[in-house]
Structures are given as structure tokens and as C-alpha cells.
């Protein structure tokens, strides 16, 4: 059934029940592709495998409930103004898909291109962001430099006083950047994949990855039995190391808690997304009115989905310094996700040393924005058995050769 104002009206007047958005099937004995992890990336991968590559004997296995990992725990920032050509390519690919995703899925994911503004607080930071602006322009990615007063005009509550401890010297603005409704992305892809025949199997934890004597994968062991598969794709953000260890693959990953928090809802007060790298905070306002605030990860490896109070405190110090009018607002909810972080802070996408075993992980704190693009190119990689051109640079191999894609390093500050 297509969603529309007309279907809403029919159900409102007729009172007939809505159909299921996805089935809850029992796992079959075998699939062409088994995807481990029903987050946004995993579900998108399944959707594009079915839609673009005609591979419909696909199962997505989920330990808990679909969309319950980082997809449902992030601060939903979407942008593509990354510095490195490789990064800009994949995030821009994603951004283009975001722009039509609601129509593609017939599911309002509420992609809201309200602009993402990254504040520069020092001469050095201004230089770094200008480098981004120039590099992005060359790559056809929109990103522009704003003076402090232009930044203030775009985001009125911003404090641009030159007397601040970290005064705002300017900002890089990507107008097409913005936010989306995170849960709806998982649900929309789940509904779309389900309609194309994909089995989404929740409450099904993978306990082992089975390999043929000659090496390739042939099945996964789960809490709901053995499931044979020609190809297995691990898209289990946060838990990648644990899952791949079942196939004997060691990964250059560490899993860290990442906290986020929201305020109580207030009437519209913040029109865009504001990020500040040097004081470690980012903020936007949800359609419900909550200020959605995120920060850096906690310091240590953990799977606890909770972090220390000092991390939230430090984040709010920064937010209150940037927006002194928000100081009386109140933190309503705080939560944590588990992000797997690579040495160069860029994802690992592609083949593994085990034939038939694919991985998509290491998105760190920035995976949500890539969801459609990541699923799209990963599906192509799985379908063809070789890396899609956009994902080729993100191969695991780069850690051996040293061809890292280091985004974080570009922000290094020293004199």
C-alpha cells in the first residue's frame, strides 16, 4: 500500500487497520546474501540489493530490534562537505540520495536541508575550513565561507561577540546539509526491502560464521538456527570486531561510547545545524522542538551504551558558551551509542580476507549521514564481488599500504 494523504484519509474515515510495514518471518534455511545488522546501513544494503541488483533472497539478521543501534541513537546530522576527495565522493553520493529518499521509499524520512554551519574559532581553523570550501568546490560539493555577521544572520541565536573565549571568526556553511528523522530511515528501508521480498529477522543473534574447508563463508550460526548463505555482509556498527572475530578476522577498530542528549522541547529557536570542532559540540533543533546535542566520544573502549557525566557536562559548557540564552533550558534525555572507530576515522567498506565475507564498518561518529550512499555502493560491491569505484579507497587493505583517508588529521592545530 502506498502512503499518502489519501491513504491517511481512507484509514481515518474508514477506520480500517493499517497493514504491517514489514513481516516478521521465520528464517529460511538458505539465502543468497545474509546481512548481519538491521541498522540503516544494513537495511539500505538489502533494499538496494533487491531493487538495483535483483538479489531478493536476502535476509537481514538483527540481534535486537531493527534500527535499534546507532541509527536510532545519533544526532541525525547530514552533510557532505568533507575534505578528502574519497570522503566527499561517498558522502555526496549519499546526500544526492537523501534529497529524493522520501519519494524513493514512499516514506517521509523528513530530510530537512536547513544548512550545516561549522564554526571557526581561530585563524588556523578558518584556514582549515577554507581549504574544505575550496576542495569541495572543485568536487562540486556546495560549501561556502561566511563572515561572523553572515553566520549570525543565518543563525540568529549565535553569539558572535569578539570577547568570547573562542570568538567566531567565520563559518563554513553547507546549505544542502541538514537533518533527517533517524528512526524513519530504518523503518522506510525496512518497509521497502520487505516489499521487495527481503526477510528482516529480528531477535536473531549471530553466534558464529561458518566457513568451508577451502575458506569461503557458507553459513551463519544464529540463536534461531543455522542459516546458509553464499555471501555474508557484516554491517554491525559498534560490534564489528566481535562479529568478524567469529570468522577469524581481526580489525583495526575500537568501539567507543558516544553520548547525545536532548533538551525539553521549546518553540523554534535554532534554524540550522551548528557544529564547533574546537569546543567539541554540535546542536540542532528537532521538529518536535527538542535541542539535539552531541559531542565527542568517551575516552575508553566500551560497549555499555552509557558514558560519564563529565562528557555531557563538557558538551553543555560549550553549548552554553555559544548560546548563552540556552542556559536555562534543561536536559531531558541522555543516551549512548557504540561507535567503531578506525585509525584514520574513515570507514572500512568492501571485501575481507575471507571469500564471500564483506564488511561495512568504522563510520565512527559520522555514519548516519552516509546511510543511503553506503547501502547503495555496498550493495553494488556485494552483488559484483568487487569494490564499487566509490568504495575502493575505503578497503581494509589501506592500513597495510598506508594510504589512509584521514579526515580528522586535517583539523590538526599547531604553530
Amino acid at each position, binding site marked *: 500500500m502506498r502512503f499518502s494523504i489519501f491513504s*491517511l484519509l481512507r484509514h481515518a474515515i474508514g477506520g480500517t487497520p493499517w497493514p504491517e510495514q514489514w513481516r516478521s518471518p521465520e528464517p529460511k534455511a538458505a539465502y543468497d546474501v545474509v546481512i548481519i545488522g538491521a541498522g540503516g546501513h544494513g537495511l539500505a544494503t538489502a533494499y538496494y540489493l533487491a531493487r538495483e541488483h535483483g538479489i531478493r533472497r536476502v535476509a537481514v539478521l538483527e540481534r535486537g530490534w531493527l534500527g535499534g543501534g546507532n541509527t536510532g541513537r545519533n544526532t541525525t546530522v547530514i552533510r557532505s562537505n568533507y575534505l578528502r576527495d574519497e570522503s566527499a565522493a561517498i558522502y555526496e553520493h549519499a546526500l544526492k540520495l537523501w*534529497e529524493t529518499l522520501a519519494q524513493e521509499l514512499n516514506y517521509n524520512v523528513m530530510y530537512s536541508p536547513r544548512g550545516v554551519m561549522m564554526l571557526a574559532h581561530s585563524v588556523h581553523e578558518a584556514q582549515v575550513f577554507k581549504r574544505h*570550501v575550496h576542495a569541495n568546490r572543485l568536487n562540486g560539493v556546495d560549501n561556502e565561507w561566511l563572515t561572523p555577521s553572515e553566520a549570525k544572520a543565518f543563525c540568529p541565536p549565535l553569539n558572535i561577540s569578539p570577547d568570547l573565549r573562542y570568538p567566531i571568526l567565520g563559518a563554513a556553511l553547507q546549505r544542502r546539509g541538514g537533518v533527517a528523522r533517524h528512526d524513519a530511515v530504518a523503518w522506510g528501508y525496512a518497509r521497502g526491502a520487505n516489499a521487495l521480498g527481503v526477510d528482516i529477522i529480528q531477535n536473531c543473534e549471530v553466534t558464529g560464521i561458518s566457513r568451508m574447508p577451502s575458506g569461503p563463508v557458507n553459513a551463519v550460526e544464529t540463536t534461531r538456527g543455522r542459516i546458509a548463505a553464499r555471501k555474508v555482509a557484516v554491517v554491525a556498527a559498534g560490534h564489528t570486531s566481535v562479529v568478524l572475530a567469529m570468522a577469524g578476522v581481526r580489525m583495526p577498530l575500537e568501539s567507543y561510547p558516544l553520548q547525545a542528549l536532548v533538551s525539553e522541547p521549546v518553540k523554534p529557536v535554532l534554524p540550522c545545524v551548528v557544529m564547533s570542532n574546537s569546543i567539541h559540540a554540535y546542536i540542532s533543533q528537532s521538529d518536535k522542538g527538542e535541542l539535539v546535542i552531541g559531542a565527542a566520544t568517551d575516552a575508553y573502549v566500551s560497549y555499555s551504551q552509557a558514558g560519564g557525566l563529565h562528557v555531557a557536562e563538557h558538551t553543555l559548557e560549550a553549548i552554553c558558551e555559544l548560546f548563552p*540564552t540556552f*542556559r536555562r*533550558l534543561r536536559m531531558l534525555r541522555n543516551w549512548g551509542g557504540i561507535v567503531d572507530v578506525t585509525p584514520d576515522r574513515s570507514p572500512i567498506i568492501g571485501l575481507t580476507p575471507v571469500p564471500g565475507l564483506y564488511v561495512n564498518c568504522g563510520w565512527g561518529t559520522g555514519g548516519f549521514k552516509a546511510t543511503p550512499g553506503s547501502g547503495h555502493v555496498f550493495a553494488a560491491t556485494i552483488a559484483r564481488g568487487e569494490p564499487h569505484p566509490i568504495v575502493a579507497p575505503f578497503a581494509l587493505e589501506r592500513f597495510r599500504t*598506508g594510504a589512509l583517508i584521514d579526515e580528522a588529521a586535517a583539523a590538526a592545530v599547531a604553530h
Partner: protein
Amino acid sequence: MTQPFRTSEGGRIDRQRPIAFEFDGRRLTGCHSDTLASALLANGVHLVGRSFKYHRPRGIVSAGAEEPNALVTIDRGNGRITPNLRATQAELYDGMRARSQNRFPSLSFDLGAVSNAISPLLSAGFYYKTFMWPRSFWRHVYEPAIRAAAGLGRAPAAADPDRYLQQYMHCDVLIIGAGPAGLAAALAAAARKARVVVCDEQAELGGSLLTENSEVEGKPASDWLVNALHMLRDADVMLLPRTTAFGWFPGNMIGAVQRVTDHLPDPHPRLPRERLWHIRAREVVVAAGAVERPLVFSGNDRPGVMLADAARTYLLRYGVKVGSRVVVAAESDSAYAAAVALRQAGIAIVAMVDRRPAASDVARSSGLPVRIAASIADTSGSLRINRATLSNGEKISCDALLMCGGWIPTVHLFAQSREKLRFDEALQAFLPGVWTGHARCAGACNGAFDLTACIEEGYAAGGANGQPQRARHPECAPALPPSVHKGMAFVDFQNDVTIKDLRTATQEGFRSIEHVKRYTTTGMATDQGKLANLNALAIVADLLHQPIPRIGHTTFRMPYTPVTFGALAGSARGDLFEPVRRTPMHDQVAALGAVFENVGTWQRARYFPQGSEDMHRAVARECRAVRNAVGMFDATTLGKIEVTGPDAAEFLDRIYTGSLSRLAPGRCRYGLLLTEAGYVLDDGVIARLGPDRFHVTTTTNGAASVLHHMEDYRQTEFPELRVWLTSVTEQWAVIALQGPLARQAIASHVQDIDLAPDALPHMSVREGHICGVPARLFRVSFTGELGYEINVPADHGPMVWQAIHAGNVTAYGTETMHVLRAEKGYIVVGQETDGTVIPSDVGLGWTIGREKPDFVGKRSLARPDMLRHDRKQLVGLLSADLLEEGAQVISDGAGIGHVTSAYWSETLQSPIALGLIAAGRSRIGEILHVPMPDRTIAVRVTDPVFYDRQGARLHG
């Protein structure tokens, strides 16, 4: 006193102290010790707000933190406006101005209520199903409309002038909740001489004892309370009223927020508004009580429908009658206690509607008009309930309807401690499961609803052994699962989630409780579902035909109730947000008119404008001074590490790319540090002061990380080396003197160091005295000129600066320093490098000691990507126009690198730039292009050294 619903006696309010306040501009009077909610009810005001989605009129439901409806904005004047406060927790003070929220134009006539009329269209998840056409309308039409409709109160428009403090505390036993169980636990803990802290979210300690009219241990409850508090004070127990424990963090750290001034009409300006406590407790006793469970029936959200125990609290604690003709809907015996109390105060209980199939003993003996096996089918009334319709069709007119669906133990904090909960079938609620010795529970939050049992559990929990007795709950009949009705039966009042929404969600495949929560938003309002969650869970379990424990509960997360951003940020604001580091010469430098820039946590002088000079002209003048005469520069911020010990040289050999063991005492060398992955980490000058002593400098921002890096290797990889590292960054003030006249500028101030070029050549160091104070004098240069860096003990920096500056030396700042070093092709780590650059990329392959078997990063330089010939390499770029740093460089339309530094060179009278260009060194002489938004600039690739390539001036 015109408070028609105030009783003439009883309660803990002070009728002799009237308090004037305003609600929506209406002037009203309450009493001292009222909350805003109790004062409004005393005035007969039930309608206090509008719901989030349907803008339905809403009244006060509860008397505490669980309140979903009575959210108000309290306005204390400019900047002191706080939205979304619960009227049930806001203590009344003289002159309070409160406003209702989420209504236009007024509370009683709200245009937003049109959404109520079309509510069938707005069922759970409706926005995911529409607003998609045409595509651009979401951003420009639908979303702005949705945003404007949502959002409750308004954020303040002015900066908050109030202060917030944070305080740390350690104790043996922290008790959360000062009701009977908590106080008993405190008494027991104090008796064993433990250091005890008791916190309670209410203004007055006592919890349920404040409304208890029975006896405790043979004396009236209020006397027991007075006596208990007296004993605790005598035992030096710290009592913290108005303090909400909101979070439980690893290592038994509890976050609690204390409201210091919000209840005061005219707080002393030195008081903080709130104080955030970090309490590290050996043991924590949670005695947080329980909240009453509301009932789910059609029209259960009308003003006048409230929790039975809340009505009892308003009567017994605040002397307020919530109505005159009251219907009570009971699914638990505790409803009868409330009804009896109200009847004693002269309120007519017109019906006890008891849904249980048979009358309990309490029901039979109550003497109330009981309707057994009946329930509420519907209510009516526009802005206040005026009639209840029972399941048997009976219609009863009333002005209040009290509901009691049993109790929900407040397990929130216990669950945050990462202990497990268990579902108690008898109670139909979650209780603490097994707990360790550090986290204990007592009283109603542990499932004990009998006063004696609460106190016994409290004594046990506060005692040395700590294993509380598991009291049963004989007087609390099990809650029945909510029955499913037609019409709008609300589960989550604030977010307007009805039974129908939950049904829609489960039909659509949202079967996990987390999915239901997110799809319907139940439990996601500002009350965090304190009233809604258990009912939602029971309904979903019923819809899915599964037992509640199978469905499970959503995760309990901090905070228990919302916490002010300001309290979490504490005193870290303005100057204290991140303290600025200033050099010892800051005042002298500032007196010369310096314009400062932030570099990491430091403030450094960027340039020194004279008269009407702008930065460009000031820098040009400073550059000329250094190249033609002499300039002075405050270089104190550079990191400095003293490396000592017999194996110091060996250690540095392993850490730096170069061979420092071959450095002679008294000589200096440029040092480059790599990460183990081979990337440039930092650079600086290494000076050998003696066989076993080195003075090493780092970049300004690298100081801490380089020391950490070195300590890591020293302690964990090379523990056999006898070497010690000391940060001396703040020990020395550093003044750089650069220029052909540098020697003359310092000669008269240097007492015992021979400055002759042969005695103190380029890249050497001597210890001696300058201006009469001990000094280390380096002959080094970051400008390409004859240069010295004077290090003197930090306190003497200003004196030496003044003495030298008096000799007509031009002060220059970081901007000039950058121009001069760029003319010489010297890199700045972080500008020419970005964490992906290896030594050969920036022409520093020569620093590598080829004969050394190993150093940190060496092996990584042999990886395939490091050996590529088309790596980006540092080159000079000459152009007619000044380039922009960060600009891209293209060749045949493809990006091949970027501009790392670009300046006007006063010396060369032309723009210069440095860039990292793919295979750059093989492109010298080529013309490349830099695309700008409005044009393309042609650049010629050159050697990165623009000035004095032979280095003759260095050795002058």
C-alpha cells in the same frame, strides 16, 4: 484570602502568610509552602495547559515529579525565564509570574485545538506517511508548520544572568529519598557512625510522612519525623532538601542537582541558582518511593481527572480540596484511603467505581458508595470534567475524578546503576532484581507499601549488613491491566498518545516496546513516561498476547527529571570556560598595542599595529625591521621539555628521526618526531646542554601531546633506559631576537657568554646570565636571519623584555613570524602538515639518521604508499596575485594539491606561497592553476626556499 478550595485548617502550609502570584496575568493568592499547583487548585483553577499534539485542555494530574500536564513558564524578568517547569514542583514565592504554554491566543480558547478535530488523521506515525509531495514543500511548507505547532514553551531571548555551581562530595552512605524508608536507613547508617548524606527532591523532608495520619513506632507520624530529623542533625548527617538525584554513573557516582534560589522571591545575588553535586558514595540506598498508576479510559485527560493520592496530598499537605463532588475510580485499595480522607474533609464522594470483580475488605468497610466491577466508560466537560459515565451506563455529575491503578515503584535510579529489574506479577510492576552490596533499595521503590515494612526495610538497608528484608505488600492490591476502550483514552498525556495509537503501531509491525515508543512517542515527553510507560507496556503486551516480561521495558537513562544546562555547565563560562594561558610578558606585549590571537589555549600577539596601521601594513613594517635591523618576539608558548639521565641521548635517538647521540654538548639540532605510523607529529629544536641533559622544544600545541608521547615510550617500551622527562614550558620565558642587528641588541645585556660567531655559532646553546638573571641562550633562527632565543626564568621575562625593547627593537607577532619563515621555506606543523604527511613530503627526509637501526615511525615509512613517487610534496608557488590558504591547485582540470601558506612577502615584494602538490618537486618550473570562485590564478612551481637559499644570513 479568597481561596475557595482551601480548607480552614490542617496541612503544612501557613495560612497566616499569604503569597500573591500571577497565572496568565490573573492575580491570585496562595499560602506559604504552597506549590504553584496547590495554590492554583486552592483557587479552583484546574485548567493549566494544552497538550502537545491535539492542544487538548489539560489539568493538574499529580502532586510531584511525574506531572505530565501542568507545565508552565515562570518569568522572573529579563533572562530569567524558564519554560516547561512543572507547577507541581514549583514552590510558590511572593510575586511569582507564571504562564501557561502551547496555546494561542489564550488557554481557554486555543486555535491549535483544531488539530483535536482532525485527530483521526493524526494517528501514530501519520507524518511518515504524508507531506512528501511536492518534494520542496517539506522544507518550506510542511516542516515549518509542524515545528511551529510543536515545542511547548519558548526559550528565553536573553542570556541567563544566574550562576550555577558544582560541588564534589564523598560519603559512606548516600540515601536518595527522605520518606520513612530513607530516614530509617539514615538513622541506621548514622548509628554505625557512617558518613551519611540524605537528599530529597522536595522542599520539605519526610516524603509520605508529610501526609501520614497514622502512627509510626507508637507515635504520630509527624512526631516521628521531627524526632528522626533531629537525631540525624545531631549525628551530623548532611540533609539536602530540594535536591534531585538524577543519574547514577560508574563507580557509584551519583549526580544530584540542588535548587538553591528558585523558591525565593528575592534571592541574594551571591547565591547560585542551582548547585550540581557529584557524590561518590560507598553505598547508595535508593528510597525513592512510588508514583500512582493512572487509569486509561476514554476522556481520562479532562481537567479535574487526577491521581487519587495526589488529591489526598493536596488535602493533607496543602489544605486544598480538588473538588466538591468527586468520583473515584479504584483498582487498588489505596484509593479508599484517599477517598476516606477527602470525605472526612467534607468533600462528597459520589461514587467509588471499583473495577475489581469483588469487593475487598477495605471496600466493604469503607462506607463509601461503591460500584463493584464497574469502570469509567467516558467523561464529559469542556474545560473541566462535569460528568462521568460508568461502564454500566450510569452517568454521575462531578467536578473531579480520581484514579488509582496501583503503584509504580520508582526504580529509575536503581536501573541506571546497571542492575537488573524483575517483573513482579503480584504488583504488576518492575522491582529491583538482585543487587550488589553497593546499591540497595528500601520502601515503596522496593515494593513495600506498608509503613511499618518501609521503616523496617529502611533500617535494614542503612545497617551494616545491608541486605534489606523483602517485605511483602499486603495492602496493595494488584493493578489490573488497563482495559481497552473506544474513544480517546490517553496513555501518555503530554504527548497525546492514545490506546488507538498503540494498537496502530502494533498492527503496523512495531512490536518491540522500543519501536512502539518511537513510533507513537509514548514515554518520550518531558515526564519521560513516569505515568505512561507501565500502562503502555501492559497494553502492548495485551495487544500482542504476550506476558509483560517478554516485552521488557525501555532503558532507564539519566536524568530522572530534567536538569538545567547551566547546572551541568557549572562555573565553566566566560573566562572560566577554558582558562586562557598568557605568557609572563603578556602585559608588556599588550602595552605595545598587540592584537592577540588564540593558539590552542594560549593567547599570542599576532601583530603590533602602530597608529592607523592595518594588519597588512603592520606586518610589512615588522618584516622590514627583522630583515634590515632586529625584531623581538615572545616565543614563550613553545613547549619545552628537559630530558636528563645517562641514557637521554639514546632515548632521543629512538624518539626523533635524527641522531642526537652525535650532537656535541653546546650544540642544537632541528628535530622531527613521527608517530609510529610514520606521520609528522611535531618538530622543534634539541639542544644538548651536557652529556646527560637536553633541552627540547616543541610546537605550542604539541607540548602536552609530545610529552605524553615520550612518556609512553619511556615508561612502556624503553623502561630500561635511565632517562627522565620534565615539562619546563612554564619555567622559562622565551624572547626571540632576530635580524642582522640581533647581536648588538643583546650584547650589552649578556654578561658571561661569548657572542662571537665562532664562540656561539648558528645552532648552539650556552648557559650564563642575561640582565643579571640565569639564562639559556640559544643561537637559532626561524626567520633566516641571525637569531637568538633568550630563555630566562619566567618571572624575569618582563624585566628582560623591557630591557631589550628599550634598545629600539621592533616587536613582531606570529603573523610576521609566519611570513618570514615561509620566505625561508620552513614548515609549520599543522599548516604544511596535516597528520598525513611524512618527512620526505615536506623536504625533511634529510633529518632521518640513516645509520640508526630504528626510531619511532621508521618501519612505517617503508610501507608501499609511503614510497609512491606521486606523493604530495612541498613546493613554492609564485603568482601575480596573493593566493588564499587552502585553495586548490589544478593541472589539466584535476586537483593535485593545495596551498598551505600564502603571504605577501615584503622582502621579495611579491606574493609567495607554499603548497603540497602531487610529485611537486618534479614540477618545478611548471605553470599550474588555482581556481577561485571568480577567476583562475596561474602559479609557477618553485623551490620552497624563496630567500637566501645559501643561508649566509643565518651564519652572520
